[in-house]
């Protein structure tokens, strides 16, 4: 048995003044190379985009209240609405939101003083605001209206200048994503404390590592596709124009070679969050730690072999079968995670904190997205529901029921570390109830309208679907309202929340073994991690946590 290593050192004598000092708000508006500042910058910026994208979703649901085109001035206006909604939610919300938590938490979990490349880190963040401006500038010309997937020739020969701006903005965001990911990979491989082997690394770091590998490998393909699209649009090339010898399926292949792995860029960090939150709040080690870590890598690898299932209705028929098989295989590592998480909470002592509620909500909703994913992989059934509301439902179960619930879990979990104050738990529970049921009744009925015959991306639909759509819209408004609760909670808790202390959840990972918020250098001395990141339930871990508690109590 290893000796109990308590990460005190000079930590115990932390400067009192700095320990509780929060950065002034103005520091968040400036160029900063501190990963904690950058993390918050990412988080606040992407949450603002979440609100904008969410407001657009409300507009979509208002339009769909009736089967006719009435709210929007034209079908094109509606098309640009869901195009920008999707673009914002994917490129400006989920992906940068995980960069937020990755930035704030990963260096702390590794006991590092900062990311490997602090300046690059800041640069990656500051590409996002101009990219957003470029995309939204489209509204002053003719906004992109070919969907976030932007299939040519609709996006080349049949679209206005907003489509060019869209591609430029997406390009910038891709650059940002690649730079951020390289930073994560280098940080995770090089900046762990000597005691922390790769098999003792927290699972969030595993997930961010897998995500970053995907992003570095896949995003250049997006860049390539966007470059071809831009050339077709502005330089008169014909990569996607059949009349000039081009091929529209070229775009679909390259685009999905990025965009399917990108789904895992959006959800793997959430899975990392889940491993942290479920273990800490049920006071039990992660069940099958190695398999959970390895399954992230498995998903990352298999995720590169499934892209053409997005093209089941356009691909040559004989090529469809291999992609059906790879798509089904990816259910296996995902299943390993699901069962491991259930094994983690099984027999634990579950604390129903808001973070835990959202993590449990993730489990409950993500499984539905997983089941519908396997259904979609089944080629003959997919042919029927391809490009319908069934698909809309499926990916919202994965990206909202999965990623967004994980974002909320991460928010409630790490807010005390970021701000030094606790969130309001009662408001958190109310937020959870509204979000969970609002979500469920918004997106579950979409399966049915899709199967019955309603395609996606339409403002005008057959009147027989109106009742379904009204149920969906009403629930969506509840879901939209629930977001306001968490906004209020964050603002209120930032100012009036109870002082959190260093380690309110009694967690073993290193980010909790420093003050909340951490000082500029994160740790005064090099911290010594506990022998395993999730070693709850042993006397050694209890002693470690007690020692940390006392050290920080003394330092106040």
């Amino acid at each position, binding site marked *: 048995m290893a000796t109990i290593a308590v990460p005190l050192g000079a930590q115990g004598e932390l400067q009192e003044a700095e320990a509780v000092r929060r950065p002034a708000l103005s520091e968040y508006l400036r160029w900063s190379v501190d990963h904690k500042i950058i993390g918050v910058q990412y988080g606040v910026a992407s949450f603002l985009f979440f609100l904008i994208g969410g407001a657009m979703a409300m507009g979509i649901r208002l339009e769909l209240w009736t089967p006719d085109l009435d709210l929007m001035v034209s079908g094109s206006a509606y098309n640009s609405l869901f195009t920008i909604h999707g673009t914002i939610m994917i490129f400006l919300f989920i992906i940068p939101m995980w960069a937020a938590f990755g930035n704030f938490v990963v260096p702390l979990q590794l006991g590092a003083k900062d990311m490997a490349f602090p300046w690059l880190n800041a640069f990656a963040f500051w590409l996002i605001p101009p990219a957003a401006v470029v995309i939204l500038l489209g509204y002053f010309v003719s906004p992109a209206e070919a969907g976030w997937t932007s299939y040519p020739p609709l996006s080349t020969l049949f679209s206005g200048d907003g489509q060019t701006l869209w591609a430029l903005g997406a390009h910038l965001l891709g650059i940002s994503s690649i730079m951020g990911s390289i930073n994560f990979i280098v940080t995770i491989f090089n900046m762990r404390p000597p005691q922390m082997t790769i098999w003792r690394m927290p699972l969030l770091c595993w997930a961010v590592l897998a995500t970053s590998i995907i992003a570095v490998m896949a995003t250049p393909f997006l860049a390539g596709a966007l470059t071809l699209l831009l050339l077709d649009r502005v330089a008169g090339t014909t990569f996607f124009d059949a009349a000039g010898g081009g091929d529209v399926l070229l775009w679909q292949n390259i685009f999905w070679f990025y965009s399917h792995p990108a789904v895992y860029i959006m959800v793997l960090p959430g899975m990392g969050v889940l491993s942290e939150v479920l273990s800490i709040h049920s006071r039990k*080690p992660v069940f099958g730690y190695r398999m959970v870590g390895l399954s992230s890598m498995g998903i990352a690898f298999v995720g590169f072999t499934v892209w053409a299932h997005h093209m089941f209705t356009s691909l040559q028929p004989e090529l469809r079968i291999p992609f059906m098989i790879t798509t089904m295989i990816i259910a296996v590592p995902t299943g390993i995670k699901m069962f491991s998480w259930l094994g983690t909470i099984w027999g634990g002592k579950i604390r129903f904190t808001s973070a835990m509620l959202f993590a449990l909500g993730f489990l409950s909703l993500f499984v539905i997205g997983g089941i519908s994913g396997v259904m979609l992989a089944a080629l003959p059934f997919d042919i029927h529901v391809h490009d319908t509301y069934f698909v809309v439902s499926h990916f919202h179960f994965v990206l909202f029921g999965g990623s967004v619930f994980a974002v909320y879990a991460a928010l409630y979990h790490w807010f005390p570390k970021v701000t030094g104050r606790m969130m309001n738990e009662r408001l958190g529970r109310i937020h959870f109830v509204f979000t969970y049921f609002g979500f469920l009744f918004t997106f579950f009925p979409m399966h049915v309208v899709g199967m019955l015959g309603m395609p996606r991306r339409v403002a005008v639909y057959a009147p027989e679907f109106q009742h379904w759509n009204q149920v969906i819209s009403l629930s969506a408004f509840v879901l939209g309202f629930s977001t306001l609760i968490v906004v209020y909670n964050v603002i209120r808790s930032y100012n009036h929340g109870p002082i959190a202390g260093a380690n309110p959840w009694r967690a073993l990972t290193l980010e909790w073994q420093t003050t909340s918020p951490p000082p500029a250098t994160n740790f005064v001395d090099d911290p010594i991690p506990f022998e395993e990141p999730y070693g709850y339930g042993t006397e050694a871990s209890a002693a470690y946590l007690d020692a940390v508690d006392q050290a920080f109590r003394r330092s106040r």
Partner: protein
Amino acid sequence: MENNPSNRPSISPAAVVVAAVFLLVSVIGVNWFTSFVPAVLPPQASAESKSVDELFYILVIIGGIVFFLIQGMLLISVIAFRARDDDPGDGPPQHGNPLLEIIWTIIPALVVIFLAVISYQVWTQNSEPKAAINMVDGEEIAINVSGARYAWTHTYATNRLDADGEPIVINSGDSLHTYIGQNVDLRLQTMDVIHSYWVPAMRVKQDLLPGNPATGGRPTELRFTPARIDGVDYPQAYPIVCAELCGDGHGRMRGSVVVYEDESQFLELFYEPAIHAILNPPADPVLRGEIVIQEYICNSCHVLDSLGWTGSTGPAMNGIADRAGERVPGQSAEEYIVTSVWNSQAFVVPGYTEQMAAFGPDQLDAYYMEAEQLYAIVAYLCTQGEDSDCDLENQTEAIPQAISTVFGIDVDITFGRGESDESGAMADEAPEAAADESETSD
């Protein structure tokens, strides 16, 4: 604090009970689930739909078991393993269970392999090319579908010949006509962007891909065989939907599949009347124009109350004849309308954009329009108004003159050789069931 020193899996009696309860709940729950299946799917109007639905049924059963297993374990966990308020302690330091981990890797792997195998079987069975496709009168014919923003056009290349010895082509607009048991094999070609031809009741869908017109385009194929549904009165119409975003009017891009009870009903109500109408067009150019204009996809963008068009992206055609003479200085009403059809970008009505296709005698497929058809269309549009600017008394001269002036093409106006009765019922006047959408009534 419980500590399990051995790494061997231990299975407690409680776990067995819990597992049994799960099983029971899953069986009941899945049964309940599957009873909903027919209610959440469209009618099974094709042979393919039956096998796809059977696959879906299996997916629902397996998915239902997974769903109830996981939600059940979750529910039990949150009830049974809730920490008491006075208990600050940790759970047991269990790190895993290799046996369990192997089980929950192997079993899902076997399940997905099973699903892949049965999906493959259904797929090969449904996508296999069939013999005797599109049989009409004992012969195979070609049925072509053209997708253009925002309407479908179906054409039947028949084996009959017209008076000039040319094969007759039936244009049935946005309706596909077929009969139970016909092995439908469609050749799909888009005129512009990607569209996707989806018939929910048949469970089939295929994208239309832009190709190079100079090399024959890039046709794709779609196959299905309509099947009988008990208790349905034939002919019965089922919606066709565009499933790939194609622009402003994507949601309006619909059509219908009209299924007849058998080949003789198909011949009697659709095929023969359509051929008869082509062989015996009405002599009156206005009547003929009313038929011809509906073979084109004008309804996808324009409004015209007299034909029930509800498009929104193009200028309304109601009362067009009242305005046609004043639009462009120096152009007569006939000349203006002629120009607007064959050279549509020459004058764009203020407030609208240049989106109308170029129709003309040199165009391919859906945009091909003979001068004779243009003549008939103009004759019809000249009647759309209360105080027409056109020379209605003298149409047979004024319109050919306008076409000749603008395009330098002479028009043969001697159609209507046959009987000039009112038998010009085109394809689309075949009975359609009430369930059909309004757009398909053209």
